[in-house]
């Protein structure tokens, strides 16, 4: 139940924080540096995974332009 509540709250906050940006307004969002995937290259990411006791967080998020 707590998990569902958490997901619901996150979804509501996300929806509230989400702007309505039209496709023709996404020039900056489409810039390659705006891709939300993990910024670390494969090598450093491997090093961090070994040297830190934590894992996860490497973003599976797609596209900078929001249009995938």
């Amino acid at each position, binding site marked *: 139940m707590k998990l569902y509540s958490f997901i619901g709250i*996150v*979804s509501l906050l*996300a*929806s509230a*924080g*989400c*702007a*309505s*940006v*039209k*496709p*023709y*307004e*996404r*020039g*900056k*969002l*489409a*810039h*390659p*540096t*705006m*891709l*939300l995937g993990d*910024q670390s*290259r*494969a*090598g*450093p990411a*491997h*090093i*961090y995974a*070994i*040297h*830190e*006791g*934590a*894992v*996860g*967080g490497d*973003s*599976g*998020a*797609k*596209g*900078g*332009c*929001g*249009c*995938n």
Partner: protein
Amino acid sequence: MKAQSVVTRVPRAAAGVTDLRQPLALFAFVLILVTIFIGVPHRAFAETAKPKTHAPKVPPAKKTRTTSKTRGSAASFARHHEVKPEEIYLEEDTPTEPTTPSAPVIDDTAPTASEAPAPPPPASGPKAHASFETSGYTDSDHVHVLSPSISGGLADEVAGWSVNGHYLVDVVSAASVDIVSTASPHWTEVRHAGSATGSITLDPFTVGALGVISREPDYLSLTGGATLGFDLMDKNLSPYFAFSHEADSVGRTDMPHDYWRSKHVNSLQAGLTLVLGRASIGSLQWDGSFERGYLAKPYRYVPIFAPGQGAAVGPGATIDQVNQLRLNARPNEQLPTARDRYAVSAHLAHRYTSSTLRLDERLYADSWGLLASTSELRYILDLGSRLELWPHLRFHVQGAVSFWQRAYEAIPGPGGALGVPVLRTGDRELSPLQTVVVGGGTRIKLAEPPGTEWDLVFEADVGTTHFSDALYITSRQMAYSTLAVEAQF
């Protein structure tokens, strides 16, 4: 939209001149009809775009040139937006307000409308990309790694599919304090890792699959997984999910494979990508990783001290000091056979006029009691159209697992016998530590479209880790660099 703006302007322009309203309204009505049926060839775009009545007058060739001022080709922008390059031009140059007719004509040498070549056709068909990368790592604990890798793939963003492959070799040479403390010789090992991924978009869904294999003399890892993403709210909100299963075999080089131990990891990921504004995008993500099986390292031994002696072994105690105080018994590392690991992370990207700010934060907790925070920052500067430069900062801080002890003491048993703690580890990555990494990178665009895109990428980082409660060392300094050549054709 375009027609509506004209209508709204007319009354403002005619304010106070009531006798002109009827002819102006008639003119506006006629203009609407002309706009709808004749004036704007890209009707779908005109329905949503800001007023830009001058755009159709600009020769197509000039529009494409203007678009190419930004990074990436007009075609790549077109694929992102699923509109034609001419329409992208309008977006790039009219972010908020309509501009004058002369604004787009920035290149005096551009051909006139009469002599302009036909605009490039909308990009379609697959594009290939390939890269070759070599990385080098070295640290003050005498560990050196050389990692050449190659990757390649095909992607058709219009059709919505992609396939990618990656192959990496790690050559590790180590004489770390952990190795020396067990009187083991310096060793060199080679790891091979390959991965393949693919995805297909069936609007609004994108599904993907991945497979990874990693092989070294004493470790075999196989991973398979799937991803699902979809778009909501006009693609301003994109949830995504991922699942993977990893099956590992862990052994020793001198041990028959039949005696190797197994480890399984199920990983889940759920996240949301949010468009926060015209120049900002972010994501929130939850990760769960559930490890089961043999989670220790077969080569790792843990020194055991007599009851009451542990406090005498301070942080950073040398090998000699440890050897003088420890008991003869030196059992293998032993860890719980289950570990549930959770991370919540936020990623933010903001694009300024000629730079991009990237911020990432991860909060981590697991069932072994380890808590951690990782923060990362990149600020990517465009220094001209062919050069990017970025500083990079990463900070990681973590506590210890619940069973961590710098110096494990034997447990007195009946009859004077001594036992050893059931859970014991010498893995200082499970101890309290803080890491700061500072570095930077650069991307040089050697060749741009049309033709093959060639990029040269160089990154270098230096870092230091402080161990506040570990044997042998209290800090470790590291340096890391990568040189990559990327091509897209």
